[in-house]
C-alpha cells in the first residue's frame, strides 16, 4: 500500500483533524473569549477543505486510483459532491451560531471544534468503503452531534433534546452494529467491494437480516419513518443553528452513507432492499405530511417537513438506477438550500426581548410588519411544497422522472398525491403570514450576517435557482457515476 498516495487522498480529513487539534489548544488557553477567533479559523479551515475537495469533483476522479488505505476510504466524485455540501452547511452553521450564542451568553470555545470534528466524521461517512470506516465516521459525527444538541445548557429543552438524541442514537448505533456483524459473519469481509463480491451468488438468510438491521440503523440517522420519532423533539429542542446543522450536513452525510451501503455493498442484491426502501419512502412521505398538520411550532413543522422530504429522496434510492442516484443528489443539494433559508428565517424572528419566536400563530400578519422576512419564508414554504417555478420543484421533478424511467409509475403517482397533502400545511403558514390579523410579536432586529445569508439562500431557492440546476445536475451526474462504474 502506498502511504504517500493514501495520505494525499485523505488531505481534507487530515487538514480537518490537525486544525481541530490546534484550535483545541487555542480553546484550552484562550477560553470562551477566543470563541470568535476559533469560529473564524474553523470557517477558514472548512473553506480550505472545500478547495481541496473540489478538484476531485471537477476532474471526475473515480475508480481504483482514488481509494486510499486499501479501499477503506474513497475520495471519489460522489464523496466530493457530498463533502462540498457538508462543508458548506458546517460553515453556514458556524456563521449563524456565533451571534446566536453570543446573544444567549452561552458561546463556548468548544462549539466550533465540535462542528469541525462532526464534519470530519461526516466526510469519513460519505467516503467510507468499509464497514469499519462507516461505523467510526458515524460515531464521530453522532457523538459530536449529541453534545451540540444540548449545547444551550441552561435551556431545559436543549438538554432534553440532547439526551433524547443520545439514547435513541445509541440504540440505532447498536442496531446498525448488529447488522454489520451479521453481514461480516456471512460474507467474511468488511469492505463494501468484498461484500458485493461475496453476495454475488445470492443472499444468505443471515446476510438478509444483516442488511435489514443496517437499513434500520441508517434509517434512524436520516430520520425516515418508521424511525423518525426523535426528529421533531430534537429539532425543536436543539438551538436553531444546531438544528440547521442537523437538517443539512447530518442529513447529507447519512443519506450519502445509505447510498454507499445500498449501491456499493449491496448493489448486486438491489431487489432485496428495494421493497424496504419503497415502504420507508411512502411511509415517510405520508407521516411527514400528516404529522405536520397539527403543529404550531415552526421548528417542529420543519422537522416533519424534513421527514417528508427524506421520503421523496428515498424514492430516488428505490429506483436503484444511476439516474435515481443522480436525482437523489440533486434533491439533497436543493433540500440543503431550502433548509438553510428556512432556519435562518426562523433565526431572524425575535420578539421585543430578543427571544426566539417559534409559534406559527405568532407569525400572523408578518407580511405587514416584516414584509421581507415574510417573503423569504413564503418562498421557502412554496419551495418545500414543490410549487413551480421555485427551486424545490426541480428536486421533486428529477426524482419522479427517475422513478418513471425505472417503471415505478405507481410509486411516483402516490408520491405526487402525497405531496399535495403536504402542500396544505406549507400553505397554511403562508396564509397565517399574509391573511391573518397582525399578532405584532416579531419585533427584534436581526443580525447582519443572518440577513445576508437569508438573502443569498432565498435567491438560490427563488426561480433564479433554475439557472443553477444545470450545473448541479451535471455535478450530480459525475457523482452518481462513481457509484455505478458500468452503465
Amino acid at each position, binding site marked *: *500500500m502506498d502511504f504517500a498516495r*493514501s495520505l494525499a487522498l*485523505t488531505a481534507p480529513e487530515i487538514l480537518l*483533524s490537525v486544525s*481541530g487539534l490546534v484550535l*483545541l489548544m487555542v480553546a484550552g488557553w484562550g477560553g470562551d473569549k477566543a470563541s470568535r477567533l476559533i469560529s473564524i479559523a474553523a470557517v477558514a479551515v472548512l473553506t480550505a477543505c472545500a478547495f481541496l475537495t473540489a478538484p476531485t469533483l471537477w476532474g471526475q476522479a473515480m475508480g481504483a486510483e482514488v481509494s*486510499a*488505505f*486499501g479501499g*477503506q*476510504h474513497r475520495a471519489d466524485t460522489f464523496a466530493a459532491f457530498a463533502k462540498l455540501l457538508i462543508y458548506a452547511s458546517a460553515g453556514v452553521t458556524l456563521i449563524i451560531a456565533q451571534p446566536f450564542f453570543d446573544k444567549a451568553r452561552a458561546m*463556548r470555545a*468548544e462549539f466550533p*471544534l*465540535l462542528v469541525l*470534528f462532526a464534519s*470530519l*466524521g461526516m466526510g*469519513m461517512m460519505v467516503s467510507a468503503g*468499509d464497514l*469499519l*470506516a462507516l461505523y*467510526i*465516521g458515524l*460515531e*464521530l459525527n453522532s*457523538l*459530536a452531534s*449529541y*453534545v451540540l444538541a*444540548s*449545547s444551550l*445548557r441552561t435551556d431545559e429543552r436543549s438538554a432534553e433534546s*440532547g439526551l433524547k438524541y443520545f439514547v435513541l442514537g445509541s440504540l440505532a448505533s447498536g442496531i446498525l452494529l448488529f447488522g454489520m456483524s451479521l453481514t*461480516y*459473519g*456471512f*460474507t*467474511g*469481509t468488511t*469492505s463494501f467491494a*468484498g461484500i458485493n463480491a*461475496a453476495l454475488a451468488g445470492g443472499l*444468505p438468510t*443471515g446476510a438478509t437480516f444483516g442488511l435489514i438491521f443496517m437499513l434500520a440503523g441508517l434509517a434512524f440517522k436520516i430520520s425516515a419513518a418508521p424511525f423518525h420519532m426523535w426528529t421533531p423533539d430534537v429539532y425543536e429542542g436543539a438551538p436553531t443553528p444546531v438544528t440547521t446543522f442537523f437538517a443539512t450536513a447530518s442529513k447529507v452525510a447519512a443519506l450519502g452513507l445509505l447510498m454507499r451501503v445500498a449501491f456499493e455493498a449491496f448493489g448486486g442484491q438491489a431487489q432485496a432492499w428495494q421493497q424496504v426502501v419503497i415502504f420507508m419512502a411512502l411511509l415517510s412521505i405520508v407521516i411527514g405530511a400528516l404529522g405536520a398538520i397539527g403543529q404550531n411550532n415552526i421548528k417542529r413543522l420543519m422537522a416533519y417537513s424534513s421527514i417528508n422530504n427524506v421520503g421523496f429522496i428515498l424514492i430516488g434510492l428505490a429506483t436503484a438506477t444511476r439516474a435515481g442516484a443522480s436525482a437523489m443528489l440533486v434533491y439533497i443539494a436543493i433540500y440543503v438550500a431550502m433548509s438553510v433559508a428556512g432556519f435562518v428565517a426562523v433565526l431572524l424572528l425575535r420578539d421585543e426581548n430578543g427571544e426566539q419566536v417559534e409559534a406559527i400563530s405568532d407569525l400572523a400578519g408578518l407580511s405587514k410588519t416584516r414584509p421581507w422576512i415574510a417573503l423569504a419564508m413564503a418562498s421557502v414554504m412554496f419551495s418545500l411544497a414543490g410549487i413551480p417555478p421555485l427551486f424545490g420543484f426541480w428536486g421533486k421533478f428529477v426524482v419522479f422522472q427517475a422513478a418513471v424511467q425505472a417503471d415505478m409509475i405507481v410509486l411516483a403517482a402516490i408520491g405526487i398525491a402525497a405531496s399535495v397533502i403536504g402542500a396544505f400545511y406549507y400553505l397554511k403558514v403562508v396564509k397565517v403570514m399574509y391573511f391573518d390579523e397582525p399578532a405584532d410579536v416579531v419585533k427584534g432586529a436581526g443580525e447582519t450576517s443572518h440577513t445576508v445569508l437569508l438573502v443569498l439562500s432565498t435567491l438560490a431557492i427563488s426561480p433564479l435557482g433554475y439557472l443553477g440546476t444545470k450545473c448541479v445536475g451535471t455535478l450530480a451526474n459525475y457523482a452518481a457515476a462513481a457509484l455505478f462504474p458500468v452503465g
Partner: protein
Amino acid sequence: MIQVFAFYLFATLCIFSGAVTILARNPVHSVLWLILAFFNAAGLMVLVGAEFIAMLLVIVYVGAVAVLFLFVVMMLDIDFAELRAGFVKNFPLGLALAAVLFVELFVGLIVRGAGSVALGKADGASAQAADASNIEAIGALLYSRYLFLFEAAGIVLLVAMIGAIVLTHRQRSDTRGQNISKQNARRPEEATVNLQPEVGKGVQI
C-alpha cells in the same frame, strides 16, 4: 505437565473466586474477589496463547472496570441489606431463569452436532504473519492496514472527552476556592477581635 498443573490451578481459583464474589456479604470483598477471578482468567488466556487478551483483561477489567465498581460501592450509599431482602421472594424466578439458560446451553450443544451455519470465509486480508506473536501481529495491522481507522478512533475518544467536559464543566462564581498564600499570610490579630460585652446586651460582629 506444568501446563496441566497451571491450568487446574487457574481454573479452580477462577471458579472459586467467582463463587465467593456472589456469596461474600461485604460488597467490597466481592469486588476484590472479582479482581482475583479476572487475574486467573488472564492466566488461562496466557496458557492458550492469547497473551494480548490476557493483558486486556488485566488492564481493562482490573485496571478500569473493577476499580470503577469499587468506587461505586464505596462512594454510593447503597443499602445492601435491603437489596438482599427480596432474595427469598425472587428465588423461584431466579431458578427458572437459570433452568432456561441451562436448557439453552444443552440445546446449543446438541444443535452443534447437526452441522454449523454456512458463514462467509474470511478474505484473509488481516491474516496473521507466520512467525509473529499475536501482540506483534495486532500492532502491525493497527499501524499499517488500519492506520487510518485507528487514528480516527482516537479522534472519536477525544470528541467524547471534549463533550463530557463541555457538558459538565462550568465556571461557577458562587463557589469559594482555597487561596493558600492568603491563608498563610493571615495573622491572628486580623482575624480575631477581643471584646468585653456588657451583660444583657448582644455582640455586634
